[in-house]
């Protein structure tokens, strides 16, 4: 046991990782490596294509992940705690809350909608029971003048193409 305390002895008597690439086993290993590289390259191409073909889907995935874990806020809180800008325990608690919170903090609306009971819809019909405003009384002369003007302009029509811009 004592000889293993020496680094050089351990180096000489420790079995090495099987890193031989010669022979049939080496060819099989190299073939597996090439297939893994091919799969990785295909995955990259698919990811790039999906990002441009389905931009809403990739944005939804990112939003979903950031909704459950706001890593930016959690890391920033830890950094602020280390710098002494705030108490480290407080920063640690905030980072934990942001990263693994199950209930939203106070002031924010709950994630799930509240239970809605069967309440009748409100009546939106206007109330016409209110009294109509009193109209000023018209004198006989004014009424006669109005009726005469109506007769004179009964056949009046607006010219074609008159703009109605206000």
């Amino acid at each position, binding site marked *: *046991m004592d000889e*293993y*305390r*020496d*680094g*050089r002895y*351990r*180096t000489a*008597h*420790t*079995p090495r*990782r*099987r890193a031989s690439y010669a022979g049939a086993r080496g060819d099989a290993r190299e073939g597996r*490596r090439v297939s*893994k*590289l091919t*799969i*990785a*390259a295909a*995955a*990259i191409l*698919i*990811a*790039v294509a*999906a*990002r441009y073909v389905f931009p809403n889907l*990739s944005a939804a*995935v*990112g939003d979903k*992940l950031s909704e*459950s*874990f706001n*890593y*930016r806020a*959690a*890391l*920033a*809180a*830890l*950094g*602020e705690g*280390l*710098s*002494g*800008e705030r108490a480290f325990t407080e920063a640690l608690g905030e*980072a934990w809350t942001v*990263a*693994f*919170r*199950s209930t939203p903090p106070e002031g924010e609306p709950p994630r799930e909608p509240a239970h809605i009971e069967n309440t009748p819809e409100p009546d939106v019909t206007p109330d016409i029971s209110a009294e109509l405003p009193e109209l000023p009384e018209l004198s006989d002369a004014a009424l006669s003048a109005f009726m005469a003007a109506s007769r004179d302009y009964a056949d009046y029509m607006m010219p074609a193409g008159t703009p109605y811009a206000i």
Partner: protein
Amino acid sequence: MIRITPPALRVTPAAALLPAIIFILGAWELALLCAVAVLIHELGHYAALRLCGGTAGEIRICLTGVAMEYDNLSYGGEIITAMAGPVASLVLALISSLFGRIFGVDSAYRLAGLSLIFAVFNMLPVFPLDGGRAVFAAVAYLFGIDAAETTRSVLTAAFGTALIFFGAVLLRVSGNPTLLLAAACLVGGAVRARLRYSGAAVIPRGAPRVSREFRADAT
């Protein structure tokens, strides 16, 4: 004078999926922050490795993080090198947080938070994380390889199960799958590391059946 020789870099096929995932989610800032945090973490490992007289092998970039193979380290050197990564992440976190406070840059705060998470997560006593490696080396030095193997298996199983359980609970309660995904990647990495040395023709009695690599899990 320490001669710096860049180790070989290999990207696994699964890691090629990372650009696709980032492109779909549009999380470019998070990807950049992760890259910076992982780079500093691994540089911490590499600097300590070279200072302790070890040699760096291949750096492998996989889907869940970066792994750096190493060699020629004593148990003490292995503990120091394992802890150097989380320490570098903590230093980066402190510097970034101060930068954010002085200049008011929110990205610096986020980098600080991410580096802090890196440091804490990698210090868990679970193999193949840095904390698990340090515990393994310490127990092996004090009580022998067999005790270290047993400790490693028990801690990995216990913490892995606990993380998966709590990850499932958090997913059920808050809909956030982050912890569950991290736990699944951790357990998968531990199983993979365990199998990496299986099937060797001759294994000296008491030899550690573990992969010799430091990881920075970006989970």
